[in-house]
């Protein structure tokens, strides 16, 4: 990761995150992200042979819940908060692309 971050990279990442950035923002984020990546590069250059990878900052594993049903939220109340609902379901704009 020694290559310099470009404006095109920032535009690409912004599009993946559905963010609309103005020219000035693209300019400033290009510099800020480059600094962050430079720092990551510094860290990556350290010799970590023999260091166990950190999977999570908390020293916990297997935090589990019993498989017991609890009531959720009321449909009417939730659908009333949605911008658009129909037929007891959330109504969303038409979608192109992948079905699941």
């Amino acid at each position: 990761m020694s290559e310099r971050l470009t404006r095109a990279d920032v535009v690409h990442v912004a599009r993946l995150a559905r963010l609309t950035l103005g020219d000035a923002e693209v300019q400033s984020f290009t510099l800020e992200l480059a600094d962050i990546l430079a720092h990551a590069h510094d860290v990556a250059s350290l010799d970590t042979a023999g260091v166990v990878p950190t999977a999570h900052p908390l020293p916990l594993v297997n935090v589990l819940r019993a498989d017991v049903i609890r009531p959720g939220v009321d449909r009417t109340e939730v659908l009333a908060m949605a911008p658009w609902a129909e037929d007891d379901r959330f109504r969303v704009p038409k979608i192109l692309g992948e079905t699941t």
Partner: protein
Amino acid sequence: MALKNGWELVVGLEVHCELATNTKIFCSCANQFGDEPNTNICPVCLGLPGSLPVLNHMAVEFAMRIGSALHCRVEPSIFHRKNYFYPDMPKDYQVSQNDEPINVDGYLELPDGFRVGIERAHMEEDTGKTQHMGSSGRIHGANYSLVDYNRAGVPLVEIVSRPDIRTAEQAKAYVAELRSILVATGASNGKMEEGSLRVDANVSVRQPGHEYGTRCEIKNLNSLRSLTRAIEYEANRQIDLREAGERIVQETRHWNEEDGRTSSMRSKEEAMDYRYFPEPDLVPIAPSAEWVAAVRDALPLMPADRRRLLSEATGGELAPGSDPIVTIVDQGLDALVLGAVAHGGDGRRAVNRVANEVVTAEQGARLNIAGFAALLVMEAQAKLTSTQAKAVLVEMMETQASDPAAIATARGFQAMDSGVAETLVDELIAAHPAEFERLRAGDTKVAGFFVGAAMKASGGKADGKLVTGLLRQRAGL
């Protein structure tokens, strides 16, 4: 089915299995198919700000059972966020396991002994259900969609095979066997028609010995029939392109059952970039060696083991992959066969009677095991003919009676003495000289006529095999 012009099919399958837990994977909403839309939802599975997921113990347990049953290593694992913008996940990401899945590197053995490698079997959450509304009802041209989040957050295990499958029939056998295994572990209800099991197929073709060709991923395979049809269609599509000198584009394709075709699904604006990163709201899963061992030891016998036991019960006369044995295990009737053998019945005869006459689990439940064994013994000792034994068996299942000897006596069944059979055969030959001449001339189909006549004359007591033997002897065949 072999492909044309020496092309070889290469298939890997991804099977999504909904786990039979009470609740969803990260929240306590009910995991229930078929409920009213949006009645099993909460802040966690709706992705509301501030809500936090907590992993379901039973989902982990089921995932470990599946891994153990598929001979995988169960490893420490973590969850990732798979980021994408699609309204079936209100969070705009799906929690899945990426590079550190819970189960790795196993295999599934088909009834014929062929092993398909399992690359991984990882945990993830299911998405909500979208319905596309508008003029065509199809995804293109839809004006809007309606979303039901009852399914969002239902626990899944995705089982990814290695590209070891070489025919459409093998793909079908793999899914059927995997389904049986998943049901045996208790992790799945196996209902493909309810979407509990969903199959995607990665299909490519190559000339044998060459590198793998470019693959396409086929989605919307809702039945074993769709699976085989789609693989065969897709293989031929790719062969035609290759033979015309064109390139295969790696892409996701949608199977259309009505047209019998696959079609490209995704607009090419941007390759999918899911930007996986570790899910900060969930800590790692690190099952202890004791937990892994306890899960493995508690697994019931898998279908492959059960087929092996049945084969052994026939003294190896029938192979574990033979049709009667596969049928019996599919129907869960192996306990009946093994029970009858334990009561002194002959294994081969038990397997054939169960596969041909009992057939279904419902019928098997009506049959007394000791009585069934006694019937097999009577038949083996030639106290009943094959036809008589079948009739007694049918009555035992109809009336749930346990004493075959009593039924045989009530029906007046006694195997015909061979002297009586000889007399009967000679009488029939005398009564039907023209038919007997045809038999002598080598028209062996006429034997069936004589057997039928012998059955009629004896009220079903004649042994068909004995009559046929006597006829052939008389005819000098």
